């Protein structure tokens, strides 16, 4: 189906645009700067890239669009030589190449600016850049070249400043200058605007356009549709590891791009209608300053979840999901006391352990290291959250009880492992997730909070986990699911809200929603829920 999709969309590109994209400043038609043919990459449980074709012309700003997990990062790692494709071929300016390492990629003329910067805080700008260069260069000469590049592209950076004093935008400039010093002919930008202010975004776009005019090709990874429509010549859209379409962004609407990104082949909902019970989780005007400089602060979040319903929160990671999870689980405390209520009791100033006693169970997004201690065996990992469920008595860990608890969890959720004494780190991602979800479910929660329930989990285990959540709902538990997978949310949620830039939309019955609307909301185009609105009962 997606093959058809891609063909029809390619044909929608006007011929004039295509020829422009294949023409260098000199006017002669040449091979594309970079061409990928049938690139596939398979990891243990998922196909990250499935027969991807992509062609970037000289001087073209080419958007790579897709939800998280669609395969953008894997594809860029392949282009930059960080990983190797299983099958498929690459051509660089018409000649076949195999890029085995980032330094080989840099030698060809490929530069990459990563989403999170890799700079040493205690070194100066020039020292940081010198470290990353493949050639040795005297400091003075390097400073001159930095100044020359920064003047030419409107990227003011002082070579002798220490990095720790630089703003996020300035740090990004250092990264870009670092790439430009090697005179790249293809520049890969990974979510470059996710950390920038609107003004800094303007400056960045000016720089990128100037580079494109000089013939530098730019691969621009993003999920911000407005930016892509403004900046990019061509967009390739990925979904589930495949190319779901190619488009001229300026000729598309946000809704049509979102449809390509999200897809409309959603599974039938398997929820039996059910009247929800009383409010179990209430968030009222919850605001939280993010502790992470790259994080997103929450603004005035309002949400109510009732017993016997599943509410989903859609949105792309990095829009405040981590902060919202921490605020609900108690890992981050926020004032006032009424901002978080669990089962009718104020919980905003309670610790995670106190919230657990109020009936909250929580499955975090990171399984190893947060949801489970990697080096400990599964029985000990049950004690992590099961202290209140009889696994600790009079200050002593009851190892017999925790082993029995682990054994029962393994049996009930068909966790594949060597037994309850297997270290958590020895389990595959999907099995560990089944174990953690199972452990929390067996603690008999009143409110269940789950982040990315099936992220990286194979199809069979995903079904088990989703069904387990639906069973919880049918048993009258309030379930809140935060996920990036829209298909999944549409399949299991009674109501859906969208988190974008730290603001939460109203939670609307899923039956009244189409993915396109959610896709548009994911860009932040919605009226946030207000305190009274979120408390309205969910009708289906």
């Amino acid at each position, binding site marked *: 189906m997606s093959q058809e999709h891609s063909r029809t969309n390619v044909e929608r590109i006007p011929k004039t645009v295509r020829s422009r994209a294949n023409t260098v400043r000199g006017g002669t038609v040449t091979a594309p700067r970079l061409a990928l043919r049938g690139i596939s990459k398979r990891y243990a449980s998922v196909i990250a890239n499935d027969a991807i074709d992509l062609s970037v012309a000289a001087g073209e700003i080419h958007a790579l669009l897709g939800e998280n997990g669609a395969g953008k990062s894997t594809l860029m790692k392949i282009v930059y030589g960080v990983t190797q494709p299983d099958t498929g071929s690459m051509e660089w300016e018409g000649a076949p190449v195999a890029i085995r390492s980032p330094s080989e990629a840099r030698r060809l003329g490929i530069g990459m600016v990563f989403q999170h910067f890799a700079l040493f805080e205690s070194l100066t700008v020039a020292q940081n850049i010198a470290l990353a260069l493949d050639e040795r260069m005297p400091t003075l000469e390097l400073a001159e070249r930095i100044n020359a590049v920064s003047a030419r592209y409107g990227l003011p950076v002082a070579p002798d400043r220490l990095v720790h004093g630089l703003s996020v935008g300035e740090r990004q400039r250092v990264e870009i200058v670092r790439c430009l010093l090697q005179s790249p002919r293809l520049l890969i930008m990974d979510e470059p605007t996710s950390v920038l202010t609107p003004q800094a975004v303007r400056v960045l776009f000016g720089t990128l356009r100037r580079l494109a005019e000089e013939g530098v090709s730019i691969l621009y990874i993003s999920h911000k549709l407005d930016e892509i429509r403004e900046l990019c010549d061509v967009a390739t859209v990925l979904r589930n590891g495949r190319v779901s379409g190619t488009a001229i962004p300026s000729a598309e609407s946000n809704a049509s791009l979102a449809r390509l990104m999200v897809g409309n082949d959603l599974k039938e909902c398997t929820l039996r209608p059910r009247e929800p019970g009383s409010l179990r989780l209430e968030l009222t005007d919850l605001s939280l300053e993010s502790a992470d400089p790259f994080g997103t602060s929450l603004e005035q979040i309002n949400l109510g979840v009732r017993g016997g319903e599943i509410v989903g929160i859609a949105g792309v990671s990095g829009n405040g999901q981590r902060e919202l999870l921490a605020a609900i689980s108690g890992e981050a405390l926020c004032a006032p006391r009424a901002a978080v209520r669990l089962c009718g009791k104020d919980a905003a100033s309670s610790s995670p352990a106190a919230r657990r006693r109020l009936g909250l169970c929580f499955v975090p997004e990171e399984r190893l290291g947060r949801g489970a201690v990697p*080096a400990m065996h599964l029985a000990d990992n049950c004690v992590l959250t099961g202290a209140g469920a009889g696994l600790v008595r009079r*200050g002593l860990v009851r190892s017999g009880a925790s082993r029995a608890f682990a054994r029962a969890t393994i049996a009930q959720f068909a966790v594949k492992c060597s037994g309850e004494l297997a270290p958590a780190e020895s389990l595959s991602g999907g099995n560990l997730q089944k174990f953690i979800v199972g452990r929390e479910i067996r603690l008999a929660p009143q409110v269940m909070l789950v982040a990315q329930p099936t992220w990286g989990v194979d199809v069979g285990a995903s079904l088990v986990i989703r069904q387990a959540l639906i069973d919880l709902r049918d048993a009258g538990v309030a379930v809140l699911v935060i996920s990036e997978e829209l298909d999944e949310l549409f399949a299991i949620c009674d109501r859906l809200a969208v988190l974008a830039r730290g603001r939460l939309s109203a939670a609307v019955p899923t039956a009244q929603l189409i993915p396109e609307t959610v896709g548009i909301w994911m860009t932040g185009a919605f009226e946030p829920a207000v305190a009274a609105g979120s408390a309205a009962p969910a009708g289906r």
Partner: protein
Amino acid sequence: MRLASSPLAALAMLATIFLTLSVLGKDPVAAFKVFFVEPFGSLYGIGELLLKATPLMICALGLAVGYRANVWNIGAEGQFTMGAIAGSGIGLFHGAALGAGALPLMLTAGVLGGMAWAAIPAFLRARFHTSEIFTSLMLVYIAQLFLSYLVHGPWRDPAGQNFPQSQPFPDNALLPPLFEGVRANGGLILALVLAALSWWFGSVTAAGYRMRVSGLAPAAAAYAGISPRWNIWLALMISGGAAGLAGILEVAGPIGVLQPVISPGYGFAAIIVAFVGRLHPIGIVLASLLMSALYLGGESAQIELQLPASVSGLFQGALLFFLLAAELFIHFRLRRLRA
């Protein structure tokens, strides 16, 4: 392979001793005899081995509890000193009046003194996120200067001909030897009991479990609702208290008087002991015996081979160095990169 790092490091250290002695022009075989055989040829020698192992063992057991929980108390030497001062205060000024109650009270005061000194880095870390590595280390020097002030000033023995030391402890404030002919005392029994207790704490109690989680996966500790402050306080109270106990056992045992220098670096050597013992109680008991042997061998090498006193420090350092190197090469492999 992971268990092999400590024996490997000990072997490499022995090779270093061998080489160093050869370079210094000593007959290595004879020197080895002086270093590792002669000191332990008598009952008295064995007693000295156990005597010196005691403070190392107690300090290292406490430190290991904290290290497993990711709390890096480097200042056991200072807590050792403050424990000795606090316990000596009781012994010197109330010892005679307390009779049989003197020693238990002195030991308790020693533990509390060590804890109080460790409370400073604990508070600074829990309240201001100050690195306990630096604060605990710097407090060592303050403690040593405070001890020096006391024995040069207010606590100096008026009948001591201006020697910087306190009055000798009354007899009921001194630990008796385990039996005739050795200097090792009841502190050794206490240390072995503490080793068993530390094993029990780490593997059975919920508090020990929470500290292990905090050390292995801080994010999982936050997820489980384990308070990081509680973890810091508990770790520093345990390691500080243990070091304080070792301090008072030392002055109420072999020294018998408060003087400017009461430790040949036991608090620092205990860090090496904790790691060579792989932070495990049994390992620590064995490692403290090895370290004690190094101290004694160094002493006899000074006397019989006219080697400088710093030679035992050199070998202690070499031991830790080789241990770290062994760990590195067990976990990582050297690879030649083409230019």
